[in-house]
């Protein structure tokens, strides 16, 4: 089967070179634009978004995006059915995992949640429409860029629409480059937007080019006011090199997240539920998200000991494996995982108290370690480390060196501990604390990596009070 992907606005021609990406029996055809065609896409998106998108009120934009989101949430809509059918093939994730993941993710972009985005960042969303009075005096307006270029990455399905929707909310022209590992969803979303509101059809584009195409990147970035890049630090460094000084660059690098479980949460009844929630965070997209846990720190002294808790998680992972099997791994991933696991098994000979739990087919692995004094990343794909601790203060020094890479903590603790630990973790660089089971579903309006979704995209224009006072004397009705 062959399908087309991407979204090109009307630039007066429809014939493009093609790039074919293969996923098992599915061929995905993406338009491959010449530099000249790219130039016309840029001009079109800039012009039309300035004329049309920027003339809409923000509440109209919210209505349109909210409507499109509802389409993708509705299991009887063709958009949704297409996504449920094709995303499992392209990403390799189980159908049920995709279905649940999409719903939980898309809920964040319903109308009332979009309003939350706006209020969270701006306080007064009308700032995006007109000059608004400020408490300090004077007036301000928030202006979105002429053009935002998004360089998306990874295969967590649908993830690109975080930045795409943010760009639309600030009424910017948007051009997004999809990654080869999930080239579909952003294009579908763009198409649905254009079908919902045909006047917006030329305000955005979803394209593909081979990452590292320096000439093309340089050309596009020079015409953009803002470039949002996703990827590892090496990719981001390469992108940054092509971004001129007059264009702002917002890099989102890879992150490490983990869980912390207090002994107060570990009695016989509650521990099982927490292990269930923790395992859910592990199986969702097989830990590929920046908010997915690499390890769980479990406090000693509860009714359920850390090693018992590790076994509980193992049991839950085994249960989930039956209902939501792991994505089929590539040879590279299989080798990495097998050799990692075998190495862990070998090290149990010399490290007392260490346990490696798993099945012979390596569908998941739990490693338990007693007060291990290191902070290490997981090879992912349902591999989790459980480390016991006495006091949070004991583990902080091992986490601290990774400050710029820390993101989410999934926490199970008393309210008092929650706030006390949050203070300590905030100081070492953590930017989000959430409940276990919610690690992979950030709230609408969250501060992604501690930053703002919309504030970082806009520029404020101030009319100072002196200008207003001064203008009074020139009014025709001045006395």
């Amino acid at each position, binding site marked *: 089967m062959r399908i087309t992907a991407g979204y090109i606005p009307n630039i007066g021609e429809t014939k493009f070179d093609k790039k074919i990406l293969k996923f098992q029996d599915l061929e995905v055809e993406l338009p491959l634009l010449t530099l000249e065609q790219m130039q016309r896409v840029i001009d079109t998106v800039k012009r039309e978004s300035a004329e049309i998108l920027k003339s809409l009120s923000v509440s109209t934009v919210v209505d349109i995006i909210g409507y499109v989101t509802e389409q993708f949430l509705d299991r009887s809509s063709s958009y949704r059915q297409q996504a449920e059918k094709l995303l499992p093939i392209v990403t390799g994730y189980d159908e049920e995992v995709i279905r649940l993941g999409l719903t939980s993710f898309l809920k964040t972009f319903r109308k009332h949640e979009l309003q939350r985005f706006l209020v969270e960042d701006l306080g007064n969303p009308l700032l995006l429409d007109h000059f608004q009075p400020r408490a300090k005096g004077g007036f301000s307006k928030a202006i979105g860029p002429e053009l935002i270029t998004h360089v998306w990455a990874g295969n967590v399905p649908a993830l690109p629409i975080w930045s795409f929707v943010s760009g639309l909310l600030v009424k910017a022209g948007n051009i997004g480059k999809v990654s080869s590992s999930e080239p579909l969803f952003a294009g579908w979303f763009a198409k649905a937007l254009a079908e919902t509101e045909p006047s917006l059809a030329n305000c955005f584009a979803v394209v593909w080019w081979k990452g590292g195409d320096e000439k093309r990147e340089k050309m596009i970035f020079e015409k953009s006011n803002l470039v949002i890049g996703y990827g590892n630090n090496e990719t981001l460094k390469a992108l940054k090199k092509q971004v001129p000084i007059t264009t702002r660059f917002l890099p*989102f690098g890879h*992150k490490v997240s983990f869980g912390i479980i207090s002994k107060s949460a570990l009695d016989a009844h509650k521990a099982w539920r927490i292990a269930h929630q923790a395992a859910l965070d592990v199986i969702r997209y097989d*830990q590929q998200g*920046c908010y997915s846990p690499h390890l769980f720190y479990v406090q000693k002294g509860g009714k359920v000991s850390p090693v018992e808790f590790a076994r509980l998680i193992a049991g839950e992972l085994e249960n989930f494996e039956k209902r939501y099997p792991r994505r089929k791994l590539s040879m590279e991933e*299989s*080798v990495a995982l097998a050799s*990692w696991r075998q*190495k862990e098994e070998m090290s149990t000979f010399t490290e007392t108290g260490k346990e490696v739990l798993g099945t012979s087919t390596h569908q998941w692995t739990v490693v338990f370690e007693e007060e291990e004094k290191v902070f290490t*990343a997981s090879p992912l794909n349902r591999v989790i480390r459980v480390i016991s601790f006495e006091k949070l203060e004991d583990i902080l020094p091992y986490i601290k060196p990774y400050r710029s890479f820390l993101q989410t903590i999934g926490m199970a603790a008393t309210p008092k501990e929650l706030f006390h630990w949050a203070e300590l973790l905030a100081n070492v660089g953590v930017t989000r604390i959430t409940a276990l089971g919610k690690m992979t579903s950030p709230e609408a309006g969250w501060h992604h990596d501690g930053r703002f979704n919309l504030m970082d995209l806009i520029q404020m224009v101030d009319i100072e009070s002196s200008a207003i006072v001064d203008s009074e004397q020139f009014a025709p009705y001045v006395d």
Partner: protein
Amino acid sequence: MTQQREIIEELSQFIKKNQASEEEFNSLALHIFNYQYKHNLPYQTFCRQKGKTPRLVKNWRDIPYVPMSAFKEVPLTCSDPEAAVRVFMTSGTTQGKQGKHFHSTLEIRELSMIINFKERFMKETNRIRMGILFPTEEKMPHSSLAHYLALVMKEFGTEDSCYLLKENGVHIQKIISELEHAEKTGEPFALLGASFSFVHLFEELERLGKTFNLPKGSKILDTGGYKNKSKELDLNEFYQLLERYFGVDRSNCINMYGITELSTQFYDDGNEVVPSIKTGPSWIRTRVINPLTGEEVPEGERGVLVHYDLANFNSVMAVATEDVGMAVDEGFYLFGRVQGAEVRGCSLAVEEFIQLAKGTAK
């Protein structure tokens, strides 16, 4: 006679005979497994954890294999590591830890190398003038490849054979004079060395605009891939360049595949067609497995190579590599080391993390 001596004697006979039925291979493999289970304690623990003891294992395919990385973690040896006559180490890796292969004697390893090399590289020739593109054993005492090349030069090289490297790369004048000498006299010449050194040599020869036409009977042996030490050439280009610069038919350009953790090497029968099929002698067997399940993959599918090398009697006979291959009737295709797993999401990858950890350690 000690148990070790017994095994050595039995192995020597086996290797010298150089042909074995499935039963004969199985029988000696189980004998050695028994010996290793008894004397190699970390391995014993490993086998117990897998629930595979000599009492339960009846077929060599069931003998538990250890990953190459295990050689980095624990001393895998049946004799006192302190008393080893030689320790070969893997080249440094991203994790900075080196794998160690302890040898209580080099007797079997050398016998394995000599008999196999004669059959697969020398064939009917007894001695040939050799030039080695690799450092000497003295320079690299822990390199198994340096030991291999020194041994083949001693056993099969003429008196005039020599090393062709200097401190900072290939010794181009010496190489040119050796190659010109061969052209002039018509005496067959063999160039042996690391694949990446050949790439460096191509670059030098291109710069000088020189090509050679070595006399009939000349051969080339390359091994080990590029290891980020030179430009990465694809296989076809590599052998094309060997043919172009030295005038040696691709059928006489042999690639050797060996790893520090083993004591026996694999060869192909030339590289007219790439990838070539690799085969080993009667005392080593290879399975191609799914690394997650450990099951053999169906023929024609890619998997990871696991070698059962009887000559590895002092360490662990069964070693799982990180090399991807595919089984065919006569042997296997080697597709090379798996590259780091591709990052799919936005979660930090282990490799990245290790780099980072190294950075913060500085």
